[in-house]
């Protein structure tokens, strides 16, 4: 029996369990890599060279799908500080690797669920609603809380931004034409691109979703994005090939949203 400071006699079993728990949790955080290719200790058995990079360019048919396509997240976003394997489940099989950058922006992904030190994240790959699990340590990710959210209402032709749940802005938008509609679901902003080649918008915010019926577009994989347009003919119209077109004053606000901000696209 162990006597605690309060004078109550406690069973030593509790003490042993507490110590054991401390030792167990220490296993995941050492960050030692036995192979330079495979990242932190927890992800050490994965050969990254065999895995597809989780970017807008790639398809992951085996990725688990987001089952709550319009649910709000708790706002956590993660940035991998090293290329991380992405698994199909907690302790599951690797299906991809998450690079530190998307296009040229730092990768930030929204967390849709957590289990111990595993994070269920949305992915920027095809098919739409792709998700995966990453095994995090204090060393292999940066975590931040994102208080922003956006919602695109397709039937209303609007985009609304929220900060800590309060509506901050609402703008009229243009959306995909009937033949090439804007897909629904909780997408997120994957990068912020100061566009050098095309001249219809100074900045383009590519989303994690892709057109459902255009497999390629303009030399790319059919990524859907948010951007402006040289004139306002798009307002309230279905005339893009999937992108959400906004006015330049709307874009001025939207470019401030952190990467990883969920853009929930509803019908």
């Amino acid at each position, binding site marked *: 029996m162990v006597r605690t400071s309060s004078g109550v006699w406690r069973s030593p079993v509790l003490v042993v369990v507490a110590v054991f728990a401390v030792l167990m949790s220490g296993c995941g955080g050492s960050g030692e890599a036995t192979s330079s290719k495979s990242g932190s200790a927890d992800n050490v058995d994965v050969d990254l060279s065999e895995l597809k990079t989780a970017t807008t360019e790639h398809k992951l048919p085996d990725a688990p799908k987001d089952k709550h396509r319009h649910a709000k997240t708790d706002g956590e976003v993660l940035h991998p500080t090293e290329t991380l394997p992405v698994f199909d489940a907690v302790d599951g099989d690797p299906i991809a690797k998450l690079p530190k950058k998307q296009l040229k922006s730092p990768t930030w992904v929204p967390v849709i669920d957590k289990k111990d030190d595993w994070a269920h994240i949305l992915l920027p790959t095809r098919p739409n609603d792709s998700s995966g699990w990453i095994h995090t340590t204090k060393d292999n990710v940066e975590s*931040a*809380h994102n208080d922003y959210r956006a919602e695109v209402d397709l039937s209303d032709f609007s985009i609304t931004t929220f900060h800590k749940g309060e509506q901050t802005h609402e703008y009229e938008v243009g959306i995909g034409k009937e033949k090439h509609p804007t897909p629904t679901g909780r997408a997120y902003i994957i990068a912020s691109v100061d566009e050098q080649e095309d001249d219809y918008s100074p900045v383009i915010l590519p989303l994690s979703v892709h057109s459902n019926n255009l497999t390629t577009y303009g030399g790319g994989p059919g990524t859907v994005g948010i951007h402006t347009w040289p004139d306002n003919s798009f307002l309230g119209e279905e005339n893009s090939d999937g992108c959400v077109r906004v006015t330049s004053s709307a874009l001025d606000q939207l470019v401030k949203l952190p990467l990883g901000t969920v853009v929930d696209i509803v019908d």
Partner: protein
Amino acid sequence: MSKKRLAALGASAASAALVGSALFAPTAVADGPHSPSAFGIAADGVIDLQPTPYVEDDDEDTTIDIPAEELAGSGTLTAAAHPGEASAEVEDLSLLGVDVPEIPGLPSYSGGLIDADAVTATCDADDGVSSQIANLEIAGQEIPIEAGDNTAPIPGPLDEIVDIVVNQQLDNGDGSMTANALKITLLDGAEDIPGLSGLAGQTITVASATCDVNDDDDNGDGDGDNGDGDGDGDNGDGNNDDNNGDDNDGDGDGNGDNGGGAAPNDDGSAPQPEPQPGHVAVTG
């Protein structure tokens, strides 16, 4: 070694330092090149040429022999690899120049279809990857290359015959990056040109360097970053931006993400992003 020679080549009107941004969507290389390594030239297609000269780890090699007769190439090719760095340089490059392909609509020219005074790719653990091309000419036409570009306007009718990518920068996903200074692709229009028929789809890579590049994600208030978005020292002027890996600060302080956007704000909130020069093809 190559820096002195580059300085000696000087800055002629058509030379350009290509330390700029890569505009292509990120390329994932499943089976990446060895790091560090470098080569002068390689070709893929009907003409198949393994990287030449090819060096890795701690080695240098120079050759004046491009051992693929149909490439009809000449030049001085140097490749060097050492711990933490790699470089490749091709001087006095001439490709596809035996039966100099006559292009209808353009004056006749001498030399090869592709000529350049110098094509260089470098990789450095701290500075990242960069490329330089001096005096590129295609079918005798000067092709000016703007800093920060990954393509260059090709005058018609050449644009149906050949396409080029310059300063291609690849993140190999394993901590290493590759710079391919000049990639040439022959297009379908090549079929109609005597001397080029049968070569549509042919690619030629000139000057490639691969090495591990240090990643310093934390730019909270580090050197040359843009944590508070004041635009100094970042890649806004297109220096050394890469494709999908580490970015280099414009004032060469080393590697890091641009604009400090890779770490939370002091209060733990998600950072405001800084638009990065580049290109993304989205569905309009």
